[in-house]
Structures are given as C-alpha cells and as structure tokens.
C-alpha cells in the first residue's frame, strides 16, 4: 500500500519541477486542483470579458461616423467575439463546459473585467477603449503568452497580435479627434478623463494587497506583478497622450529621472470596489444584455439541435436502407 498523501506530495513536487523548468502543462497532464481552479477562474473571466466587452463598443456600432469606421469597428468587435470563443475553448480543456461558464457569468458567480461597466458616451470613447483598454489588456496578455498552461499561453499569442492592431486603430481615432475640430478635441479629452483611471484599475490591486499573487507566480500563471505591469503601461502610454496633445487626468504625473519612469497619483480604490460591487453605471445593463441574448436565443439553439438530430436519424436510415 502506498500512502496517498505522499503520492500527492510527489505529484505536486514533480509538477512544480516541470513548471520551474519552463515545461508547458498540457490538458492531459496531472495538475494540482488549486492550479486547475485558478486557471478556470482566470480564463473564464477573461473569456467573459471579451464577450461583455463587445457591448460598450457595440453601443456605437450603429452610430459610427463613417462607413469605414463602422466597418473597422465591426471587425474589431468580431475579433473580440473570436477571442471569447477561443478562450472558452481553451478553458474547456480544464473540464468545464461553455454552458457552465455562461451560467456562472449570468448568476454573478464569475466576474468579467469591471472596465466594461463604464458607459461609452461619445465617439472618442471608441478610440479611448482601443487605445487604453486594449492597450492595458495587451500589457497583461504579453506576460500571459509565457503562462505555464499550454492552451492559455497559445491562445494569448494568437490574441495579442489582434489586440495590438486594435490598440493602433483606437489610437488612430484619438489622433483624428485630437487633431479635429474644437468639439472633437473636447470629446477626446473627455474620453481620456473617463477611461484613464479605470484602465489603470484593470491591472488589479497593488501587489501588497493582492491575495493570489505569490502562488500564481510560483505556478507561472502570472509572470509579472500587477504593479510592474501597470507601471509598464503608464510609461508606454504617457508619451502617446503627449503626442496627442491631451492631458492625462493626474496632477501627480511626472517623469522621474532616477527610476527612468513616471511617478503618478493614486487610484481611487473605493471607486474600484464600488463598481465591482455592482454600482457602476452599466453593471446591470451589461449582465442583462448577456442574459437576454442567451435566454432569447434558446429557441434558436434548440431548433439547431433538433434539426441536427433529425438529420442524423435520416442519414442513419438512409445508410441502413442502402
């Protein structure tokens, strides 16, 4: 008889050795339950964010100000849907179905990125989302391309390419607005004012307040800390804002020669918690829109299923007769 506790300890030890040696973990490999759970939580949240993230941008799809902008935005939103699809599939490799994930989203058990609880109020918001929100997402996701879990890492490599395209397109809208009429400049500044801080919040709590960080770093699910990534994003983005001639809404923002990076103010964590807790302007609308689409589409999915079954039966009869 072997002792199951020592078995588990040995498995965990081997697992960690593999991770330390930068060997990718694949779906059929043994993994600690905590690793699996953490990945399901993080990856499904990421998938949900792609899907919910389609809504604030979709809000301007019918009002895009030129046919070209409309087409570009439609393609962008379609990309995000593709990311969602890709991430749901990658998450399914961990033993959870897409339906279960939807259920968790709709019941509030699973989260999505809180940034999408903010409203898109003018056209420049579409620029700001591409520039800042996709920009912050890329910063996070480039780090995730080296995640220890194979399917997630590979999904990130594929997705990152498209996200950087989105980021450039968003910046291009901002540029056009910032170089445009007085009203357009005002829209651009207004969008930056509203999206700047929520974008910084996308990196999560400060390292000192982050619950899961250490274990996730050891498992190489996470490769850089929240604060490192946030600083990287700020350092890359501030010169871009300057180039646009727009002002970042942070009066503490200043270049620091010594650290060769920007000093900046403090995130309003009360607001962050408040929005996560359900008090953002669009929390209810976002979730309701997802539920409506899913529940409203049930008869269509049922029909597709029923038709597929009928068809299979008919084909089976045909082969039997032949």
């Amino acid at each position, binding site marked *: 008889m072997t002792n199951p506790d020592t078995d588990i300890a040995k498995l965990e030890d081997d697992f960690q050795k593999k991770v330390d040696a930068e060997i990718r973990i694949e779906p059929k490999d043994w993994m600690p339950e905590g690793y699996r759970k953490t990945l399901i939580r993080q990856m499904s949240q990421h998938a949900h964010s792609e899907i919910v993230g*389609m809504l604030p941008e979709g809000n301007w799809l*019918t009002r895009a*100000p030129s046919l070209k902008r409309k087409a570009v935005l*439609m393609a962008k939103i379609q990309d995000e849907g593709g990311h969602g699809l890709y991430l749901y599939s990658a998450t399914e490799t961990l033993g959870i179905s897409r339906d279960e994930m939807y259920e968790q989203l709709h019941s509030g058990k699973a989260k999505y990125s809180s940034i999408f609880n903010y409203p898109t109020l003018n056209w420049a918001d579409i620029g700001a989302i591409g520039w800042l929100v996709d920009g912050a997402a890329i910063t996070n996701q480039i780090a995730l391309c080296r995640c220890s879990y194979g399917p997630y890492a590979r999904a990130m490599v594929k997705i990152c390419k498209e996200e950087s395209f989105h980021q450039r397109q968003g910046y291009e809208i901002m540029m056009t607005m910032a170089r445009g009429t007085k*009203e357009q400049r005002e829209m651009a500044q207004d969008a930056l004012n509203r999206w700047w801080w929520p974008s910084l919040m996308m990196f999560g709590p400060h390292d000192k307040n982050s619950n899961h960080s250490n274990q996730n770093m050891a498992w190489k699910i996470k490769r850089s800390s929240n604060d490192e990534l946030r600083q990287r994003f700020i350092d890359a983005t501030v010169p871009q804002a300057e180039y646009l001639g727009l002002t970042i809404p942070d009066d503490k923002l200043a270049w620091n020669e010594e650290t060769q990076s920007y000093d900046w103010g403090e995130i309003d964590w009360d607001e962050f918690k408040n929005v996560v807790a359900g008090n953002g302007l669009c929390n209810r609308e976002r979730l309701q829109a997802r539920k409506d*689409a899913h529940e409203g*589409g049930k008869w*269509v999915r049922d029909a597709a299923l*029923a038709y597929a079954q009928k068809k299979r039966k008919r084909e089976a009869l045909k082969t039997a007769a032949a």
Partner: protein
Amino acid sequence: MSVSVAEMTEQDQLFEYTVRLGDNCVILGQRLAEWCGKSPVLEEELALMNVGLDLLGQARMLLDYAGKVEGAGRDEDKLAFFRDAQAWRNLLLVEQPNGDFAKTMSRQLFFDCFQFLQYQKLSNSADTKLAEIATKSLKEITYHVRHSSDWVIRLGDGTEESHQRMQKAVDELWGYTPEMFDMDAVDEAMLKSGVGVDLKEIEPAWKKMVEGVLSEATLNFPELTWQVRGSKEGKHTEHLGYLLAEMQFLPRAYPDANW
C-alpha cells in the same frame, strides 16, 4: 431624382442605378450591426458580423463609385450620411426591422438569393467597374446564400416553435419581395446599354431558389396577399427614418468634422 428619366443624362442614370445597389448594402449592413451582442449563439454573432462586413465593403465600393460617376464631389460618406429618407433607393425589404432571428434570416434569404442572381448577371456588365465589384462580391454572396438557407432550413425543420416563427417570418416579409423585380425607366435604360440587369428575367430563378429552401425547410411557399413598392422613387416605410436618424446623427451634428 426630381428630374424625369427623359431628362436624365446617361451619367445621371448610372449614378441612380449604382446608388440603388449601394443603398441596399448600407441599410442591410446597418440592420445587421443592430444584432451586435444580441445573437442567439456566439458563433452566429461572428457569422452575422461577417455578412455585415461584406455588405459594408460592397456599400463602400458602390457608393464611392456612384460619387465619382456623379462628379459633384460627394464621396461614400456624403452619400451615406447626408441624404434624407426620400433620397434613399434601398429596397423596402432591407429596411424592415430585425424582428426575431427567424425574421432576420428570412429577410436575409430573400435578399441574398436576389443579390446572388443579380450580381451573377452584373458581373458581365458593360460597365467595367460594376462588373468588377459584382465579380468580387459574388464569392461573399455565395456564402451569404448558404448561411441564410441553412438557418431557414434548420429553423423551419427544427422544433415546433422555430417552425412557427420561421413560417410567420416568411409570410410577414413576402409582400416586400415583388418590388425587387420592378423595372423602371432607369433599369430599362441601363439594360439597353448593357450595364444593368434584367430583373424580370431573374425573378423565376429567384422563386425557384427560395422555393427549394422553403420546401426543404418544410415551410409553405406563401401566397401573395398584399404587396408594396416604391423605393425606386424614394417611397419608404416609416422604419427607414429611424434607422437613418441613428446612423447619421454624428456627422449631421458636426458637419465640419472629419472622423
């Protein structure tokens, strides 16, 4: 056009003809954009946007060309965003609201089949630009036909509920379809010069295509109990005004801006 066809130059006629083609694509593309985030299943969300993107692409080529034919300095966006309802030449069918997924698929099937047959002919147009656009678009439209046909069949031959919804959708839109084959003086002139398509000629093929899909879908081929027409003269249903109000608001509110 306020001038009568007799007074129209060949250039006016080509402009009018091209705008009609382009307007169908703008309006239907806009309707599909309304589905964003509302699709019954994620895969279908992507498929609907694929179709929408194709239509927008076609719209841009056609309106860009129309603007050049006109030679009055109107580009695709001037044409799309600065015309009121009575100046639009899209078919009544494509401006009809999305309704449920069955209605959208029914609208799509009727239009896709029409567009497929029309562009097949148009790809041999004496106007090389229109021929080029039609040829280029035909591949996309072939996919659209398959996509909408598949759904109409699935829904028609799916569950009791989907069958009922699908039949209702087909019936509700049927009266908008005869208009697709109307030939007015512009069409006749374009046909004569080898540019345009004989719409009367493609009508039987359209009926056959649609009938084939409906029968596979176990749906009844509807009876024509009513029919409406008029889009070629700028007569529309009330739905178009709201669609345009939403679509055009931003460029109209800031006419000096570039976007």
